[in-house]
């Protein structure tokens, strides 16, 4: 190398530039200061954490609206158990790679948001210590009943019961979902709306086709009863 200690001085020049730079260019400092919060706002127990809807850990600067953590069940209206989407079909329980979901189906049916009587999960536990937030359950769920939450402060004093989230802890409203993952929630709702529209359209088309077929049959009986000469003009 040219100068005896040339390489070492070049390296020291780089560290000096970084040392001085960190005072002027703030974007160099990537460690964001985890904001200090008075102790009363810290979560006491995963279960009863934010009971009031929509309250999200706004001031933690680390949670982006794409990050996914543990799953949560969705319900549409205000009263959770009336408008729950999950119908306890247990597909997610079968598909879950680490087997951390445990569902007990309800015996009798109940009216759900769409008015159709449906089963609902009497028990729906997710063992958060086993779940690896891989989002397979969200993919395989045909009813968009389970989506990923981004709540990560789940530390609990009790190692066993504390980390088993029961159905009531998991239930969150749809607009809470819009609050934490706006883009994804919007896309999902649009897709549901389209499917519903498509189903209605298909149903309407089927109903109409059935009605049309019924008319033709009625017309056909009418001709059959009048006589048989003009069969051929029906055929074409």
């Amino acid at each position, binding site marked *: 190398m040219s100068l005896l200690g040339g390489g070492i001085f070049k390296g020291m020049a780089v560290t000096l530039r970084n040392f001085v730079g960190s005072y002027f260019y703030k974007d160099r400092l990537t460690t964001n200061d985890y904001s200090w919060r008075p102790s009363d706002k810290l979560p006491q127990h995963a279960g009863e954490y934010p009971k009031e809807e929509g309250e999200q850990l706004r001031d933690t600067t680390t949670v982006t609206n794409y990050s996914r953590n543990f799953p949560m069940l969705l319900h549409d209206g205000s009263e959770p158990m009336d408008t729950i989407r999950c119908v306890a079909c247990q597909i997610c329980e079968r598909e879950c790679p680490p087997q951390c979901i*445990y569902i007990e189906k309800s015996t009798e049916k109940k009216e759900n948001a769409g008015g159709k009587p449906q089963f609902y999960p009497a028990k729906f*536990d997710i*063992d958060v210590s086993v779940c690896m937030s891989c989002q397979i359950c969200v993919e395989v769920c045909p009813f968009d009943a389970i989506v990923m939450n981004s709540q990560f402060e789940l530390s609990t004093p009790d190692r*066993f*019961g504390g*980390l088993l989230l029961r159905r009531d802890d998991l239930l969150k409203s749809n607009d809470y979902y819009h609050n934490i993952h706006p883009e994804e929630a919007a896309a999902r709702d649009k897709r549901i709306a389209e499917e519903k529209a498509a189903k209605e359209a298909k149903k309407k088309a089927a109903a109409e086709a059935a009605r049309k077929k019924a008319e033709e049959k009625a017309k056909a009986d009418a001709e059959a009863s009048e006589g048989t000469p003009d069969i051929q003009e029906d055929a074409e």
Partner: protein
Amino acid sequence: MSHTVNHESILGKFPGTNWDQEAGALIVPTVQAKEIATWLRDNDAFLLDYCSNVTGVDYLECEVKEKVTKEDGTVETVTRTEPSRMDVVYHLYSMQKQTGPLVFKQRTNREQPEVESLTPVWRSCELQEREVFDLFGVNFKSHPDQRRILMWDEFEGHPMRKDYTEPFDYEWEPTPHDEILEKHQRGKVIV
């Protein structure tokens, strides 16, 4: 895919080998294995100097339903029982000629699985053959250092065999998911 390796000349040169068309692999008797391997590595037509992957496959005794078309054209399924066997599969590549994988299998029985070790031919088989010994129980003749690689030395049994049943988990702790554990005991036990 890089162009594949033609295998007719091997069958010609070594009568003992045969070609398993369905799996696309060269079945080699363990006795001639080392000789064929060295020939494949040094012969200019192949120059398979890189053994990428060595693994074991365990086949249990099972009935296979086959559609057999008899002379008079009628198709009827006959069930044939496939004998249990253990395969050691080698994927060979050539780095100089950049040619595709030649799958090279050695077959042995499940009771005392004994296969010729190819570590003297390719050093890359050393650790992978130890793993097959550890997880499948296949004994590799003339392997320089055949010990368990992943399991601790006092471990009995070979976990990757199809008929391996888990020992009782003595470190079991009461966990919230014991309801789930019982459900598992009732329902499907991991084979």
